[in-house]
């Protein structure tokens, strides 16, 4: 989101989901759309049936790639080079939107100078994508009447995550594919309400609606309304918290609905840090791996047991309604927070979540016109500044949130860890269709467990052959951080030299071996690339 904020002034999907159906070209990069966002994939396939072009850039042969007009399998972490290479060709051929660039953007000269270096030869050397394919995807994207970019964690979970996003923003602006129907840059959010959590300021540096912590006027507004003194200093990102714990600067941690004991990189390290806390409080639906380390566990409730709103990936604020009373001793998140706050000397007196929505509208300009009565049916898409505003289908129509769109001259930075003699394979991680994130919910479903019961390592048959490994064989996957034992799945989905590990499984947790190196701006770890070695397990020795 930081990348989009820098380029456009706000970070969210710029188009709406339904718009994808009528665009003329869709460029999917770093998103396994049909497995992770199937309903959005359906819109894309509908567009395809209406004649739209489909480009897929993904190191794996994912399901939706079989529908692509062109699928390129770039090397892990080579996205900036790939996108710069596309722009190199676009500028050379004169396919850019000159009018859009001159009227709505700034910074093209520095970018032009940067992408000049990314000749097709250089791009092929870095990404493995051949010139003819690079040319084809550049042409499809630039010459279609209107094109939309769709991306997800395959773009962001890199040390160059912010740079990757900035590059996509560059590409979109260069071709004038911004601020119009069907043209935009669209990060697909991985959870039903992660957009809402970010919108509400569940980030260390912003208040609700991305109003900056430290901005005097903003901070005063919140102080006055909440009748408290507020810090002018941003808090810590999750990536910063672990060192802070180790240095003794952070003594207590309250974790809500997150499972860092599976979702954070380098788990051995995470466990050590969480165990060093004076107090760990975990609020979750179930007693997760993280909750098992906690001194205090607060049972939360599911979607069916509470009233409120979820904000989906297209910025749409939608109502959820309680259909059953909370089970057992669990309570709604709002109730838990209110009671805790009262005990700590700051009573919150909301009788109903709708009162919280009124407060959000009062304090958050982009949510100013969103009330429960207006979202009974289909919800509203922010920005929606006042009661008469119909909501916003696509962002940046006549001008960008920051005024002019800003091009960033982004250079290619290789992943933090690349394969070498000792660890010769590149590992990437991701989601599979049958499970969700750390499996807190899905691994409790018998139907889904029947589908996929345990983790596996996807490897190209040729690589397996070289190692003398058979399909289904249990092997060791070893990185500089740790090792796991896991069954292999031989599949042509993978290119030679690259292996894939789903991240849902605690007993063979991908994050025992992933690299905690992170993006310097967004602090997101490089889950998508690290170097590993696969070893046969010597059965005699292991007994």
């Amino acid at each position, binding site marked *: 989101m930081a990348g989009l904020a820098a380029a456009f002034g706000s970070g969210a999907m710029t188009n709406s989901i339904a718009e994808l159906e009528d665009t003329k070209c869709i460029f999917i990069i770093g998103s396994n759309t049909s*497995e992770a966002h199937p309903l959005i*994939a359906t819109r894309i396939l509908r567009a395809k049936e209406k004649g739209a072009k489909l480009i897929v850039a993904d190191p794996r042969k994912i399901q939706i790639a079989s529908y692509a007009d062109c699928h390129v399998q770039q090397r892990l972490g080579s996205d900036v080079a790939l996108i710069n290479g596309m722009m190199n060709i676009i500028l050379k051929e004169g396919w850019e939107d000159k009018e859009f660039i001159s009227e709505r953007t700034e910074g093209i000269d520095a970018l032009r100078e940067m992408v000049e270096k990314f000749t097709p030869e250089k791009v092929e050397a870095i990404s493995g994508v051949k010139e003819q394919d690079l040319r084809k995807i550049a042409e499809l994207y630039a010459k279609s009447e209107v094109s939309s970019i769709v991306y997800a964690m395959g773009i962001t979970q890199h040390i160059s995550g912010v740079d990757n996003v900035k590059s996509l923003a560059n590409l979109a602006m260069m071709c004038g594919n911004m601020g119009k129907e069907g043209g935009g840059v669209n990060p697909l959010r991985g959870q039903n309400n992660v957009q809402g959590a970010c919108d509400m300021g569940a980030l260390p540096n912003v208040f609700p609606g991305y109003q900056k912590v430290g901005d005097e006027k903003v901070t005063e507004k919140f102080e006055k309304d909440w009748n408290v003194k507020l810090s002018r200093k941003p808090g810590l990102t999750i990536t910063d918290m672990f060192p802070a714990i180790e240095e003794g600067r952070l003594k207590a941690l309250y974790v809500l609905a997150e499972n860092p004991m599976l979702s954070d990189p380098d788990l051995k390290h995470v466990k050590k840090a969480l165990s060093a806390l004076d107090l760990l409080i975990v609020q979750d639906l179930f007693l997760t791996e993280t909750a098992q380390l906690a001194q205090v566990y607060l049972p939360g409730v599911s979607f069916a047991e509470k009233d409120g709103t979820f904000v989906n990936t297209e910025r749409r604020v939608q109502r959820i309604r309680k259909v059953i009373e909370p089970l057992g001793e669990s309570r709604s998140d709002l109730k838990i927070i209110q009671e805790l706050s009262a005990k700590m000397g700051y009573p919150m007196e909301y009788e109903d979540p709708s009162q919280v929505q009124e407060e959000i509208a009062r304090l958050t300009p982009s949510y100013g016109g969103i009330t429960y009565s207006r979202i009974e*049916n289909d919800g509203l898409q922010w920005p929606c500044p006042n009661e008469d505003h119909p909501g916003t289908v696509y962002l940046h129509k006549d001008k960008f949130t920051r005024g002019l769109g800003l091009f960033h001259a982004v250079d290619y930075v290789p992943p933090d860890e690349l394969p070498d003699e000792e660890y010769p394979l590149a590992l990437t991680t991701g989601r599979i269709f049958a499970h969700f994130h750390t499996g807190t919910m899905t691994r409790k479903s018998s139907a889904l467990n029947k589908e996929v019961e345990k983790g596996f390592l996807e490897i190209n048959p040729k690589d397996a052959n070289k190692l003398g490994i058979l399909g289904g064989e249990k092997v060791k996957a070893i990185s500089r951080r740790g090792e796991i034992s896991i069954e292999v799945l031989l599949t042509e989905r993978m290119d030679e030299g690259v292996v894939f590990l789903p991240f849902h499984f605690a007993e063979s947790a991908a994050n025992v071996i992933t690299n905690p190196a992170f993006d310097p701006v967004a602090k997101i770890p490089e889950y998508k690339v690290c170097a590993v070695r696969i070893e046969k397990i010597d059965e005699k020795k292991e007994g």
Partner: protein
Amino acid sequence: MSEKIAKHVSELLKQGKIEAFIGLKEQQGSKHIIPHIYTDGDNLDGFYTGFNEGADAKRYPLVKTLFHISKRYPEARLGILARGCDERGLKELYKWNQLNTEQVVTVGLACSKELAEFCECYKPYPDEFVEGEKVPGVDSERVKKVSALEEPERLKFWLDKFSRCIKCYGCRNICPMCFCKECSLEEMEFIETGKIPPENPIFHLTRAVHMAGRCIDCGLCEEACPVDIPLRILYKKVNNIIMDHYSYRPGFGEEKSPLNILGSRPDENNS
């Protein structure tokens, strides 16, 4: 116009002819229509009356809902709003001994011409109905169009559609005729687990074979499918084949499917 149905349902409840009525309800302040069980003849608040408006008429798997409720309350007499397809579903469930005619009272609704054309329904009305007008059945242009494709194209058409499948089981779960306790689609010997699309075309052909002589053409499977697989064309086609070879159409008449290998109930001696 739909006052008639509400009045009829109210009387059935008040006279004790049914204990509950499975219909649709409008919620206050919301345009979303939901299935609802009415139990009080004097209180039909929100009783949905727009069920024949346009081709996107609000439809829910009411027969499947009734099926589940009847399993839990086997003694209860239940009323249900029944279109032509719902009635065909009920008739098949009686034949397959999954429901007892004594348990069910239908309140018939004939579909609009618009909906009949959208569904390409061969009988868009139940045998008896309280509301609506009989409009003629419609032949399926979609089936004709796909059948007219040359074989390699036709195969490509279906393989292409099936390869979108994300194995959500939505088609099976919503189907009023899918009542088996064990489902072939979950047998690992037939269908390998752990991957999408599920084995192509075995997964969908297995289901299609099981729909032969069974599908009552309600079309809910296709409406539920999140990836736009035109399942209704496929199942209409398999039923046309059964019609051509055995002169049998599910949901019509008393006789059982020619593919029924279960035979009769012990208390029936007609075979």
